[in-house]
Every structure is written in structure tokens, then in C-alpha cells.
């Protein structure tokens, strides 16, 4: 043995791995820190209340006005609309893949869905911009096709593979005995799915839904390219909006370094960060409950 004993060496190795594993937490801390550091000064120019609930986002006017309420509403509305589209389609397709599809079909469908989950969002944004927008504009005779409907549709298309794939895992892991017990009691396949399988997989499915929403609210390129960019509280689904990520992405390149506007954009990132954090903590809680109590808690 060269100097240090094996036990010491093993301890050093373990400590090394611990430090690396802790980097994720450190990075998360750094993210929070650096966001706050750059966001903080905006509250010299405006109050927290005016910032969050002010309805006017005119960062480049003189005097500027930093109310992000329209941006928050924009984010929430496209998230909710896209969820309303993506959840039923995603979950129903998961039911198909897990319960109805022929094993051969399943073997193809599952990887295809997984593949599509990797479609770059800039491509979807691009498609929404050059194909869906003109079509919407012509068909509904609108001033612009870049609006809530377009953004929600493209976001939904982006979220569906994620929701479908995670839901399918949850449905698939429902124990066979449950299904058999249900069939043995004379239930139809439909009844078994709706009364037994889906409830048993509910936490997994809800996790999928929450994660899908969290992706939608944080997604940048799609809303940057197809939401239209109007920083006003919308009155109809065919209005343009400017969700928070779009605002940051569009304006950060143009704004002077460490101006009030720059700080305001970082403050928006803080809001966005905590919003998605909340979603993820809920998802973490739900899936934990699922894992610990398992299918026993029907």
C-alpha cells in the first residue's frame, strides 16, 4: 500500500462523487443567485406590485413602464389552452398504445412518440409561422395569424409526445392483477380502462400533465415566433400575446447592458423560474406519493 490505506482512499473517492453530485444543487443555487443579482436593481425603478400587476409593458418609452401583467397573462393563457388540447390527446393516445394497440404496433408507436418528443421547438415555431399563421389569417379573416390559437396549437403539438410517453409508462405499470380482477367481474374493456386502469395510474398521469404544462410555460421559441408579440392583456383567442419567455428572448439582445430594461428582463426570468419551480415541485410531490403508496391507494 502506498502511503494511504485502502479505507482512506475509498473515503476520498466517495467524497469526490458526493461533491460532483452536489454540483446540480450548487448550479441551481447559482442560477437563483445570478438571476436575483441581475434582477434586483429593477426594484429601484419600480415597486414589486407595479412590476407584477402593472398592465403596461413599455420598457423603452420615456419614462418607461415595467408592468408584466400582460406577459404573465400571455404565458398563462397559452399554457392553459395548449394543455386543454394536449392532455386529452396525449392521454388518449397513451391509452391506445398501452391497452389497445397490437404488440407489433406498440413496438413501433412507442419509439416514434419518443422520437417526436425530441423535435426542436424552433422547427415547430417555424412551421407555425410560415404555414399555420397564413392559413389562420385567411381562413378566419384575421389581422394576423400569429396569435393565441396558433401558439397554443404548436405548444400542444410540442407537449403531446411528452404527456403521451409518461402517461403510457404509468398506465403500463398498472399491475395485471387489477385488470384481471376487473375482467373476472364481468367488466368490459372500456370499463376496465376507465374504472380501474386510469384511476390506478392517475398520479403518474397527473405528473405527466404537470410536466407538460411546465414545459409549455417555459417554452421560448414557439411563443417567440408565433404568439404575435403584443404586450397587452388579450380579449379574444385570436389576439396576439407576448408570453414571458418571448419577451426575454426578443428584448435581451436589444437592451443596453445593466439598464433598467435589462434588469426587468432578469426579473421576468425570476418570475418564470419560480412558476416552473412550483410546477416541478408539485410534480415531484405527486410522483413521490405515487411511488411510495403505489397502486395500493385506489
Amino acid at each position, binding site marked *: 500500500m502506498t502511503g494511504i490505506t*485502502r479505507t482512506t482512499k*475509498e473515503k476520498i473517492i*466517495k467524497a469526490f*462523487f*458526493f461533491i*460532483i453530485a452536489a*454540483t*446540480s*444543487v450548487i*448550479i*441551481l443555487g*447559482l442560477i437563483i443567485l445570478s*438571476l436575483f*443579482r441581475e434582477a434586483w436593481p429593477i426594484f429601484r425603478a419600480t415597486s414589486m406590485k407595479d412590476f407584477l400587476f402593472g398592465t403596461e409593458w413599455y420598457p423603452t418609452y420615456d419614462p418607461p413602464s415595467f408592468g408584466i401583467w400582460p406577459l404573465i397573462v400571455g404565458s398563462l393563457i397559452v399554457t392553459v389552452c395548449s394543455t386543454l388540447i394536449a392532455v*386529452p390527446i396525449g392521454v*388518449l*393516445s397513451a391509452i*391506445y*398504445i398501452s391497452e*389497445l394497440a397490437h404488440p407489433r404496433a406498440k413496438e413501433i408507436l412507442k*419509439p416514434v*412518440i*419518443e422520437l417526436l418528443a*425530441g*423535435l*426542436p*421547438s*424552433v*422547427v*415547430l*415555431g*417555424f*412551421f407555425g*409561422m410560415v404555414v399555420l399563421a397564413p392559413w389562420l389569417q385567411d381562413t378566419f379573416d384575421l389581422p394576423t395569424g400569429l396569435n393565441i390559437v396558433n401558439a397554443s396549437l404548436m405548444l400542444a*403539438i410540442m407537449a403531446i*409526445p411528452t404527456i403521451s410517453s409518461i402517461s403510457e409508462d404509468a398506465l403500463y405499470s398498472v399491475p395485471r392483477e387489477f385488470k384481471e380482477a376487473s375482467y373476472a367481474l364481468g367488466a*368490459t374493456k*372500456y*370499463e376496465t380502462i376507465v374504472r380501474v386502469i386510469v384511476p390506478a395510474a392517475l398520479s403518474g398521469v397527473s405528473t405527466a400533465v404537470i410536466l407538460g404544462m*411546465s414545459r409549455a*410555460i*417555459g417554452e*421560448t*421559441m414557439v411563443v*417567440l*415566433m408565433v404568439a404575435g408579440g403584443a404586450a397587452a392583456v388579450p380579449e379574444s383567442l385570436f389576439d396576439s400575446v407576448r408570453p414571458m*419567455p418571448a419577451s*426575454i*428572448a426578443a428584448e*435581451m439582445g436589444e437592451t443596453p*447592458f445593466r439598464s433598467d430594461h435589462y434588469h426587468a*428582463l432578469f426579473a421576468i*426570468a425570476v418570475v*418564470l*423560474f419560480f412558476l*416552473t*419551480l412550483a*410546477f*416541478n415541485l408539485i410534480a*415531484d410531490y405527486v410522483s413521490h406519493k405515487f411511488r411510495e403508496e403505489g397502486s395500493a391507494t385506489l
Partner: protein
Amino acid sequence: MKSGNLRWRYIKQFLFFGLVKLAVALIALALGGILLYLLMQGYSAISWDFLTKPPTDAMTKGGIMPAIIGTFYLMVGSIAVSLPLGVASAVYLSEYSKKSRTLRIIRIGINCLAGVPSIVFGLFGLGLFVVYLKFGSSILAGSLTLGILILPTIIGASEEALKGVPQTFREASLALGVSKWQTIYHIVLPNALPGILTGSILGIGRAAGETAPIMFTAAAFFTARLPASIFDEVMALPYHIYVLATAGTRIEETRPLQYGTALVLIALVLGINFVAILFRSYTRRRKSW
């Protein structure tokens, strides 16, 4: 009466299954339609010159070679950052950690990191790497940002791969008087390698397709020459699509370039993911335990 009831149950089932199939058809229609449309529109723009020549005439003509190269650098850079960190984190989580509050904090941290929006990573990279550490907008700053973005994916995949190695292998090795680290290094990691590789390839695919994180940390609108060091800015495929489609005065005129670039990016990302999925099913079938 009874048979009428049963009939109604079967009608319900019929309707429900119809709905389920409709959902699948909608997905196939939407995603298949989008891919097919982009393929048809982009196909004609693709040529050898398009792939190997730089843009010309203020980016209204020519190819996308610098963007392909730039994306390649960012892919390599981000995996170089995230693979060692990710695998080592996973080794701690799967092999060393005991159930404790610290462990719970680390897990929550990783989950939260996985959920951070990509634009927030972009700002973080801007604040820390570009400004504070003075890397400037560069391959280095972009790779670090993307590397952190895909870190949770790599950790997750690696941990799953490590957990998949049967406990009996570890016991057999330890019972021979082999130390824990040697057991990990000689038995656990080699057997987890296929899973780790699959996760890495998927991570690379994700990094290749991201736009928001590199907007302020690495991506250049246009560069006249190829990057000479990791402190240079690069063009990148996703950002190039965005730029061509939204900025400039001749957006309509450059449509073919936009479709072409989009098609190249889709082919790249889906190709990478496809390789990962194929590789995974191949190693799963070959697995001897």
C-alpha cells in the same frame, strides 16, 4: 332488459375506442403532416453546396456549412461538460448514497434543474459565463450552458443504467474482497455503459436542437470565418433558422434556405434520437442478464 344494458355498455366502449383512435390519428396527422410538409419544401434546397458552403450575399444565398460546424462544436462541447458530471453524479446517487436528507435535497435539486426553462438557462449562462467569467459569447459559454441544460437527462439515464446492473454482480465482486470503487469501476460501470451511452446520445440530440440557451451565450448571426478557438462565437442551425425566418428584410426571398435549414436540423436531431433508440433496443436484446 339485461341484454339491452350490455348492449349500451358495448356502445359506450365502441364510442370510447373511436375517440382513442381519433387521438392517435390526430397526432399522426399533425406531426406526420408537419414533417412531410417540411420535407417536401426543404428537399429542393438541399444540395452538396448547401451543406458545404458558407452563406453569401448577406445570407440570402449560399449554404449553411458554418452553422452545421457550429452546432457540431456545441454538441461535442456540451456532452464533454455533462457526461463526466452526469455519470459521476449518478454513481454517487446509485452506489454511494444512503437515504438521508442530503440525498433528498440533491434529488430535488436535480429535478428542479430539469424543469428550469431553457431561456432561463440562457440568461444564467449570459450572467455567469459570458459576463461574470468574461468568456464572452463563445463556444465555451454555450457548451457550458447547454451542458448544464442536459445534465439532468444524463444523470437520469446513467442512474437508471446503474440501477439496472443486478445487485448480485456487486455482491459477487465484494465477496471476493474487491473494494467498492474497484467493483464500481470494473463491474458496475461497464455493465451500465450501454444505458449511459443511450442517455448521452439523447442528450446530444437535445443540445443540438435548443435555441434559447445559446441565443445570448454562443450563437452568432453571421460569422465570416470558422471558429478558431473555444472563445469564438459560432453560427448554429437552430439559431440560423430563427434568424432567417424573423430578421432581415428579405424574409420571403430566403424561404427555401429556411426550409432547407429546418430540414437539416430535423434530420440531425431525429437522426441522433433514432440512433439512440436503435442502440438501446439492440443492447436490450443482447443483454445476457
